């Protein structure tokens, strides 16, 4: 008898990370002869995700993995799945703390922690002093909110003399971020650093600064290291990022879910490592495939 596990993902195709995650997830499932998976995608829509959780319950899967489109909004749905006797594993970005009693485990990176790491890098890059701007993710999404919060809190604590002059959303979109940065460059004659909530947007900001001839004066720090970010780092144009492998993320989630179904003991918060990556230590990491 095979174990049947369902997953509803956030928004496949919106960026390479999620696409690679899905591929890795399917590959990992195919490699295990004992599991059968139902792979769904919420397309970024909370309501659709909740419908999918209902559909998965309807199909009587043995565990549901959820990549929340929104950490708060899925809590009641998670509770219901929990009450229906189906264990829930949250992947990639965590749900709000009110939902914690209803989940079997969380598997993924720590986005708040990532924001902190980025803040620490920023302090170091600027020698604890300077004026920076922030390009956030798509408004209203948990990952965006958590990274922003982690970054801002840590920055205020670690190096209060680094000031965030402005924050605007880049919607996880390189072109949008490029436009935002162009406006920043006009508005602020002096920008010492840019924090972007992912490398895709970070490189967009870098593009804009290069076009304005100001890239040399600015430190760029991103998150979720993308191939473009890795390359820019190799060229010395990009200061650093946070390394996060979607393959680790996916495999970790599947393994956690299997363990839960098989009744093994799993830690509730099952973080995988997301180390800092900078120009100095990048040799230790393979170039991301996405």
């Amino acid at each position, binding site marked *: 008898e095979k174990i049947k596990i369902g997953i509803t993902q956030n928004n496949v195709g919106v960026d390479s990370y999620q696409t690679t995650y899905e591929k890795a997830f399917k590959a990992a499932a195919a490699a295990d002869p004992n599991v059968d998976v139902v792979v*769904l995608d919420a397309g970024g829509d909370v*309501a659709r995700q909740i419908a999918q959780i209902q559909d998965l319950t309807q199909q009587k899967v043995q565990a549901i993995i959820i990549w929340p489109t929104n950490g708060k909004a899925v809590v*009641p749905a998670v509770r219901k799945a929990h009450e229906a006797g189906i264990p829930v594993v949250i992947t990639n970005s965590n749900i709000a703390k009110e939902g914690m009693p209803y989940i079997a485990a969380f598997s993924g990176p720590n986005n708040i922690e990532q924001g902190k790491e980025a803040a620490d890098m920023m302090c170091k890059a600027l020698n604890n002093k300077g004026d920076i701007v922030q390009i956030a993710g798509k408004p209203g999404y948990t990952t965006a909110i958590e990274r922003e919060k982690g970054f801002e809190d840590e920055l205020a604590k670690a190096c209060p003399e680094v000031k965030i002059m402005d924050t605007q959303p880049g919607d996880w979109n390189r072109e949008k971020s490029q436009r935002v940065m162009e406006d920043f460059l006009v508005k602020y004659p002096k920008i010492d650093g840019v924090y972007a909530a992912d490398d895709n947007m970070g490189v967009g900001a870098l593009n804009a600064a290069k076009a304005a001839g100001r890239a040399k004066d600015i430190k760029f720090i991103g998150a979720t290291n993308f191939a473009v970010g890795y390359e820019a780092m190799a060229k010395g144009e990009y200061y650093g990022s946070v390394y996060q492998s979607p393959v680790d993320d996916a495999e970790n989630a599947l393994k956690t879910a299997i363990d839960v179904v098989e009744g093994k003991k799993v830690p509730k918060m099952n973080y995988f490592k997301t180390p800092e990556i900078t120009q100095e230590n990048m040799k230790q990491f393979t170039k991301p495939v996405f």
Partner: protein
Amino acid sequence: MSHSVLKSPLGWLAGNPIWGFIALIFIFFSFANPYFFALQNFQNILVQTSTIGVIALGMTLVMINGNIDLSVGAVVALAASLCVDIQGWSLFADWGNWAILPGVVAALLAGTALGALNGLIVWKTGVDAFIVTLGAMLGVRGLVFVYTKEQSFFAMNFSFSDFGSSSIGPIPTLAALFLICTAIVHFVLSRTVHGRNTYAVGGNRSAAVNAGIRVGPHMMINFMIVGFLAALAGVTLSSQMGAATPNLGTNYELWVITSVVLGGTKLKGGAGTITGTLGGVLAIGILRNGMNLMQVPAFYVLVILGSILIAVLLLDKQLNRKGKEELRL
């Protein structure tokens, strides 16, 4: 829509091809997937379509009027946020389950008020509804973000989300609510003076004006109805989720309009029925549910939905051709 002329079943189907299409996909999914044909799945489909469905009822009125409302998705988000946030205010802390009430009332009032605002602008300025509500679609979403400060809300009181998943006998409460709304709006549209005037205003606005129908207030009422129903959808959606996010309802306007048009309502106005709209809503709901159950990859779902939309339109055109003698325009 001559209500008196009896049509043969086949003639009826030609006028409402969407129900034929529903039968087709229903049979297809029943055979193609073991989980499809199950009472609980039908309940799921009804609950899942109820959100889009409730809005589509109001949208049918507005579209028969010859107008359109693109702001409904944003109104859903605003209503959901208000509803979930307000019931958590400390002011109502000792109201128990009654604390939900002020949230719901505020949400419905806000939706109706925004509908009234849209209607008033369309009426007084004479600017096309598409433009007015395109603006409102951006603006109301802005309001949502101003109000929520980008935060999601989540209902501490689980009886709110329990309501969302409760049932009345075999019928889920939300589905029942949707069906009741459908019956009411159907009654209004087909039996009441306001409903018949809705056709008149959409069919020939200047004729309606000349006949002394107060077209402005009339259109405003329909905008208020769709605003109210969009807010209601926001409330039910948030009770399904027990939460609200500022991004809720994105693109709903597109799905709502799509279902209404699939149901045979003319974009130009003057023609359309609630039964047709119900068909359009169900068709999309069944398709989505069926494809989910069959695990059609997300990328292909987009292509399939898009193609089906166009295919139904083509089918409708074929069925309603007047024959070879038609003018070649």
